[in-house]
């Protein structure tokens, strides 16, 4: 393909983004509460959160459509606070694409180049190249209304990339697509982002989308960043119970922290002690919640009674790729296990089972206050 030159120049142009104590108040409502964030050149960071968490407001503050009450937005170290949106070197993809309905695909993509008064020949060349990059080479003459949702998404992406901005912002980029298309576009956006090595900040409420696309995820809640880290960090080692729940279904077993010579353990139901991953905040005699992802729970059949995590199966649900098995422990808690579907299920409601948590250490979170 011919985008090597694009790639080279973008590498050179790709910028750092820094938010310093950013704050935005609408009247009494604090939308962004002291958010600081460092995005290195070429990195893909996703702001993940429920609606009202401040993630979109943060993105719009970077784009310049929201004026921060205090704090700074720095692109390549330069303060952007006094720059109007059209002078910030950013590419923005809107949730519903915001394609210009009166212009053809080509004209939409050419728009940012025309406002920059590039020579005609160069505009044609670059539009062609970027449409090839998003695999829409043959649809340039169509109007946006004649395209499918996924194609419109690609046009929006092409339009935001064609002038090689130093930062790409994606506002719920896949929110309007149906599920199978979303998964395809997640890979597509990631591929293009890595091809161009462009610094990217995305906003989404979909944890799966965040995990597959991002280098790092910042979880936002009540206008603050509650945790930032790689997708594995956030999924495996959530700082709080809220994050553990937000990142996917999870079981929680409450217990007390004990200290042993070989590390800390959490004593949970009926004399079972589970080794803990060392973490700050795990203090002896404190209560904590063990985070157990369903796919990590193994049910072992045939146990009558005894110590440990034993119980009876209270329900089995077929979800296609897996079986969801609900186990009511003798101690009263209910655990959900997800057994990959290998063809048959060996469990039925009423069966006695033991829960095998293995010997590797587990992650625990503080109790939600």
């Amino acid at each position, binding site marked *: 393909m011919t985008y090597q030159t694009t790639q080279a120049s973008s590498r050179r142009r790709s910028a750092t983004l820094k938010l310093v104590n950013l704050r935005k108040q609408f009247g009494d409502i604090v939308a962004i509460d002291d958010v600081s964030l460092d995005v290195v050149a070429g990195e893909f960071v996703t702001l993940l959160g429920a609606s009202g968490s401040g993630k979109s407001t943060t993105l719009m503050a970077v784009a310049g459509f929201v004026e921060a009450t205090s704090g700074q937005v720095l692109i390549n170290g330069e303060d952007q606070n006094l720059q109007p949106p059209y002078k910030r070197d950013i*590419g923005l993809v809107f949730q519903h694409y915001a394609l210009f309905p009166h212009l053809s695909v080509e004209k939409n993509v050419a728009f940012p180049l025309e406002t920059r008064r590039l020579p005609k020949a160069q505009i044609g060349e670059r539009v062609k190249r970027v449409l090839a990059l998003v695999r829409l080479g043959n649809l340039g003459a169509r109007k946006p209304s004649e395209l499918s949702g996924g194609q419109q998404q690609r046009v929006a992406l092409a339009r935001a990339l064609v002038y090689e901005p130093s930062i790409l912002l994606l506002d719920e980029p896949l929110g309007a697509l149906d599920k199978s298309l979303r998964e395809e576009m997640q890979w597509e956006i990631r591929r293009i982002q890595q091809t161009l090595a462009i610094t990217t900040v995305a906003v989404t409420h979909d944890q799966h989308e965040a995990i597959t696309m991002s280098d790092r995820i910042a979880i936002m809640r009540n206008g603050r960043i509650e945790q930032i880290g790689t997708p594995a960090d956030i999924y495996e080692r959530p700082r709080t119970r809220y994050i553990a729940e937000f990142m996917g279904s999870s079981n929680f077993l409450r217990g007390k922290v004990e200290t042993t010579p070989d590390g800390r353990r959490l004593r949970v139901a009926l004399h079972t002690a589970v080794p803990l991953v060392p973490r700050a905040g795990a203090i002896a005699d404190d209560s904590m919640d063990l985070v157990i992802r369903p796919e990590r729970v193994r049910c072992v059949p045939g146990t009558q009674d005894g110590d440990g995590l034993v119980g009876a199966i209270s329900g089995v649900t077929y979800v296609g790729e897996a079986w969801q098995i609900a186990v009511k422990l003798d101690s009263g808690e209910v655990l959900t296990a997800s057994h990959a579907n290998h063809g048959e299920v060996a469990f039925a409601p009423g069966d006695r089972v033991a829960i095998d948590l293995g010997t590797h250490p587990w992650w625990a979170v503080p109790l939600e206050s």
Partner: protein
Amino acid sequence: MLDSIRDSGVFSKAIASLTIAFLLLPLMVVIPISFGTSSLMTFPPHEYSLRWYRELVDDSRWLSAALTSLQLGITVAFASTVLATMTAIGLFRYRGPGKAALQALVLSPLVVPVIVIGVALFYLFSLLGMTGSMNALVCAHTLLTFPYGVVVINAALERFDTRLEQAAMSLGANPFGTLWRVTLPIIRPSIVVAAVFAFLISFDEVVMALLLSGPTTLTIPKQMWDGIRFDLTPVIAAVSTVLLVFSSALVAFAEALRRRTQGNTR
């Protein structure tokens, strides 16, 4: 709309038919009279001819009135639409206090009786020595047509997705470029409709013309008025018929434009 007529009951059908008849009956009288032969306005005519159309074409006063009206209408359409577009966009974006009051002020020419505005303007233009001039008529008709334009264009702006403006700015267009290359092209059909209506309103406006036009600025409605008062012949009916066809064609054009663009954006 046709569907809803078809689906509705006998009563509403009757009401609809009566309304349409009420609107069309005067035309059913005027059009045949214009094709009659008698110099008295008789209905129905005993014989048909193009006599009154020939007289209309031969009379230079009607031609000069038509030219005056066209010139006036086009000027008014232009001035009124430019003002209405700027006002509508300004009002649409304005978020400060007094917005409702401003809107009411802009729409007030719709509420104040035309004759009141006419008399007021007559005194004003007398003071300025402008009565009888083309400029006076242009000002008066612009004042009358401007609120309609604001209403039509404001309706288009209400449907307009303002995120498109944000998109344009994020792509590097400054506020003027955004307006010129995104906002105006998207609401253009409504701007054209506003211009067509401004032209039509000016073209058959009679009150202002009576008060403000002079010997060199006789418009068609004023000429018709004089004709009815001093020299009532079926030429008036012929003029009416020509105007009817002309106006209908313009309205049909505006309507077709509106439909085409709605088909595009939906």
